[in-house]
């Protein structure tokens, strides 16, 4: 027992440490080289050394690092909740159609009205965010409605997949009819970026995500019961219908917020829970939920760091980086688990 506890504490501290290092690396490194001592003075002391450096650090790198941190935690927890509830290692916000729903909302706004709205930059940004929230929310409500009628989690997972394909197809049709300019704007959104959340949006973004993460922590006991499947959870006194609704809602809100503000960031939701379960050798949410929050943050901070490597003009698409890191991890986890169950 004590050995396990030490391991849990040790890994949690390690993840925390990695998160802190990566957070500061995100502030230190970027296309404009700024010395560590200058960064320290800008962040902690008020002595202004260089006005443009101050702007870069405080208005660009700091909110971006915070966004990456929150987005990573949110997506990873969203994926964990879905994997636990559907008892399926391949569940995640993108699989359940939540990301595609958000994409459809954004496509409707950007591809159909982008030309008009782009003249008013702030409205364009706001409308994209609202569209993503409405799109993801529609999928979530559809899932909640179906979860009440369909008792079976596997069927619900398949329905989620189908919703995802259907909205992607609608997006393709919209793309076919849209102008080159609008198409370009949509493709940019689809690349994913943590740079779109300024201090003005940060207030709402952080508040909603922190509330949803708190809700996830309060769901630890129902989540553990759900591991046993619906019948055993029911027999142990869990109201499956109500708890399933709550878990879908929390998971959906987390994924919708991130997709709305940052665009699609794939594979965080699927890969991080697997990494954490393998690190802790456990499926107990009391251990792995804090781990998933920390590891998710580190994952996206690392992606953002790679996307903005010094020497790269502008930034690489975060969505591509997260997929390049996440996909091999998912494959590794599946192969590793298969080896173990074969042995």
């Amino acid at each position, binding site marked *: 027992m004590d050995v396990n506890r030490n391991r849990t504490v040790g890994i949690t501290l390690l993840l925390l440490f990695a998160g802190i290092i990566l957070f500061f690396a995100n502030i230190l490194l970027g296309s404009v080289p700024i010395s560590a001592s200058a960064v320290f003075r800008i962040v902690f002391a008020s002595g202004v050394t260089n006005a443009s450096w101050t702007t870069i650090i405080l208005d660009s790198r700091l909110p971006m690092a915070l966004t990456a941190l929150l987005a990573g935690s949110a997506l990873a927890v969203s994926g964990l909740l879905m994997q636990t509830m559907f008892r399926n*290692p391949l569940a995640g916000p993108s699989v359940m159609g939540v990301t595609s729903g958000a994409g459809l909302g954004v496509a409707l706004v950007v591809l159909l009205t982008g030309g008009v709205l782009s003249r008013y930059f702030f409205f364009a940004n706001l409308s994209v965010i609202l569209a993503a929230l409405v799109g993801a929310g529609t999928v979530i409500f559809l899932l909640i409605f179906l979860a009440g009628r369909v008792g079976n989690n596997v069927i619900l997972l398949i329905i989620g997949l189908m919703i995802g394909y259907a909205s992607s197809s609608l997006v393709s049709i919209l793309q076919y009819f849209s102008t080159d300019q609008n198409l370009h704007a949509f493709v940019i959104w689809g690349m994913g970026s943590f740079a779109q959340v300024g201090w003005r949006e940060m207030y709402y973004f952080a508040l909603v995500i922190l509330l949803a993460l708190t809700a996830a922590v309060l769901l630890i006991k129902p989540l553990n019961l759900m591991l046993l499947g619906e019948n055993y959870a029911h027999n*142990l*006194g869990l109201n499956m219908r109500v708890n399933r609704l709550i878990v879908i809602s929390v998971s959906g809100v987390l994924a919708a917020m991130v997709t709305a503000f940052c665009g699609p960031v794939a594979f965080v939701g699927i890969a991080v829970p697997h990494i954490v379960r393998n690190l802790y050798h456990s499926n107990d949410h009391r251990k792995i939920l804090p781990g998933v929050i920390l590891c998710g943050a580190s994952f996206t901070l690392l992606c953002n760091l790679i996307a903005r490597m010094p020497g790269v003009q502008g930034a690489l698409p975060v969505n591509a980086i997260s997929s390049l890191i996440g996909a091999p991890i998912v494959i590794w986890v599946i192969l590793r688990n298969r080896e173990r169950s074969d042995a």
Partner: protein
Amino acid sequence: MKKVTNTGISPHVPVLTASELSVGYPSKNGAVVVQDDVRLKLFSGELVCLIGPNGAGKSTLLRTLCGLQEALSGKIFLSGKPLQAYTRHQLSTMVSVVLTDRVVVDHMKVYDLVSMGRYPYTGYFGRCSVLDQEVIMEAMELTGIGALSHRYLGELSDGERQKVMISRALAQETPIIVLDEPMAFLDFPSKLELMQIIKKLVRVHGKSILLTTHDLSLSIKSADWIWMIAAGKRMQRGVPEDLVLKGAFADYFNKETIHFDANSGDFKIDFKTGKNINVWGNGLTAQWIRKALIRKGYNVVDQPKGKADIVVDDGPPPEIKVNSGTTPFSVNSVRELLLKL
């Protein structure tokens, strides 16, 4: 021991009763009734085996009785109180289940799974107290899986997994335990071992256990009550021996080529060649020679020594004489006997 054994219910009081119970599934064109007008009583400290062919509705009835599925109509009482009057939490401390759902969670150890049984008793985050940990250890000792405590679920055999699931139900500390086909995938020794554990829980620890099974002969040997259901027939209930004597099993299960044998309490697979053979002898050897002859399709008739085709002296050493034909001869084994007939 006290924590697990104390069911708080005095013996020979029905802990579970149902009357005019109708179970099945609601569908668009009215309800699909699987079993109708079921009446039953489960007593404290007794083992009931629910038997019946596939599709008779055993699992549906079981799920309805433990509140996993709603009854179409009728009444279910637990300790004299209607099932609907129980809160989810109260119900979770009255009935625990072991279902056919396969529970395999990555990285989950035996101890972790058994500890899930404590969830109705633990606090908001499900932390187990020292007392909870004692109950968990006891529940594992009762089924003899204490040594498996730190093994992963994926590494267990079917028999071990079933014992783990029963320990989980024991950790739930309910007076009633319901098991759906607990012996379905087990080899014969594991089956007997599991039945031994179940009987101990009933006899020594006062649990009321209801289980479904296809194994009629094991049910007859072990159950205090047998409930029999078949599609389109009324449920038959009784003490196993009474049901044998009433010929209830024969009515329920006989098919053209399969017959229930009231002497052995088991099924006979009928394959008759129509040939009669007369046998004399009453020892162990004679008994097994009769079995062998029946297996080969003979109609075995007992005859006095002088008229018998086969005369068996149980010895020692056993002697088998065959009187058929013109010259009588002796054989040394059942195989030799069957070859020469």
